[in-house]
């Protein structure tokens, strides 16, 4: 019997911060980021991240959101009742019944990046599953400009999944493998993922190695987002969020093309940059809760 391998499939995960005791916290809030490919939930105890969950998005937003938050609180002893306010964000944000407010992922990513990397961050590139956004923010993590690309899956995680599947390379190894080439190939020219896939097949026929094809796709992706960054006014304190931020093949090529390095993750920081939106949502939730308490 043969087992079918799904190369695009990344592992769902969760994290609990061992240093935080939620029973001592005065407010517990959460942010749920339902993206097109992954759903993320982050739970905030006062000002510390208590736990998070990273799951695949299913066919409906409410279930995906519930899945993510359940995974996040799993094993912590927390129940949904303990979470006083939830902010929904991402592509499926308007469809989360238990969220008190929906906030765009643009504002949430800026806020989350400000929390993860600190106030130095000015430019954020969110490379998600289905689109890519360039965001410019101030030292408080407040958006000062943003740009969303109107393109389909080009330059996104979904495109990377298609290539991982085509070349039978596990998605987590794509970046690493794309760097193992003697010579950098010219980037894939097609913008559309479907056409890019055809182009990839063509390249394989011509005798290109897997690594070369991956290199061509990663560099095409890096090249495409540079124009987005240039348009909103690139500042050198830039970071990447979203799933593609974990693809070293795209990140290193982007850094090379821009001529600057992304701000490194702070030493004691263990949070996945894919969680930035959910973390930002949880921070907004905390503020909204404080505001509503003050009103009464």
């Amino acid at each position, binding site marked *: 019997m043969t087992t079918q391998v799904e190369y695009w499939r990344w592992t769902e995960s969760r994290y609990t911060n061992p240093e935080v005791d939620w029973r001592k916290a005065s407010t517990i809030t959460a942010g749920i980021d339902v993206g097109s490919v992954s759903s993320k939930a982050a739970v905030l105890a006062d000002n510390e991240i208590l736990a998070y969950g990273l799951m695949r998005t299913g066919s409906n937003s409410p279930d995906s959101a519930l899945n993510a938050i359940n995974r996040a609180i799993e094993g912590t002893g927390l129940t949904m009742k303990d979470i006083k306010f939830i902010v929904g964000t991402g592509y499926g944000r308007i469809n989360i019944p238990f969220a008190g407010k929906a*906030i*765009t992922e*643009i*504002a949430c990513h800026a806020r989350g990046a400000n929390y993860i990397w600190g106030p130095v961050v000015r430019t954020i590139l969110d490379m998600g599953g289905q*689109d890519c956004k360039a965001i410019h923010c101030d030292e*408080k993590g*407040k*958006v*000062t*400009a*943003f*740009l*969303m*690309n*109107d*393109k*389909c899956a080009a330059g996104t995680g979904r495109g990377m999944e298609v290539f991982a599947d085509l070349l039978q390379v596990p998605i987590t190894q794509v970046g690493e493998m794309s760097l193992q080439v003697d010579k950098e190939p010219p980037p894939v020219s097609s*913008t559309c993922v479907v056409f890019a896939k055809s182009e990839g097949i063509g390249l394989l026929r011509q005798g290109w190695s897997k690594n070369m094809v991956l290199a061509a796709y990663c560099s095409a992706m890096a090249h495409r987002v540079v*124009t*987005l960054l240039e*348009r*909103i006014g690139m500042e050198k304190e830039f970071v990447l969020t979203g799933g593609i931020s974990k693809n070293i093949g795209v990140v290193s090529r982007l850094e090379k093309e821009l001529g600057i390095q992304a701000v490194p993750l702070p030493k004691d920081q263990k949070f996945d940059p894919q969680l930035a939106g959910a973390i930002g949502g949880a921070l*907004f939730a905390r503020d909204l809760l404080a505001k509503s308490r003050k009103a009464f």
Partner: protein
Amino acid sequence: MLSGLGRFFVLSTSYIANYGYADGSGEYYVSIDSEKCNACGECIPACPMHIFQVEEDDYGDMAAVVKESHRKSLKYVCSPCKPTSGVRNLPCQKACKPGAIVHSW
């Protein structure tokens, strides 16, 4: 405490929202400056394709935005106003008295 004070001094949100795309033929973005936008809503009937709406933004202010449903299809919805169509005065830009709406083409 300090962040609460900070909020007190910020009078209104100011950011530039860019919606659109870039392709081989150029960059096509509709930009809305939230600081200039007074949420009057004149752009809503002015746009022949009805792409605008006025809504509360993430920071609690009212501002014109491109409807979510149109954000990924500006390539097609904005095509009647593209340079090749010969439209000189873009209706949304003309309707916007405070000059908050700008085009990159």
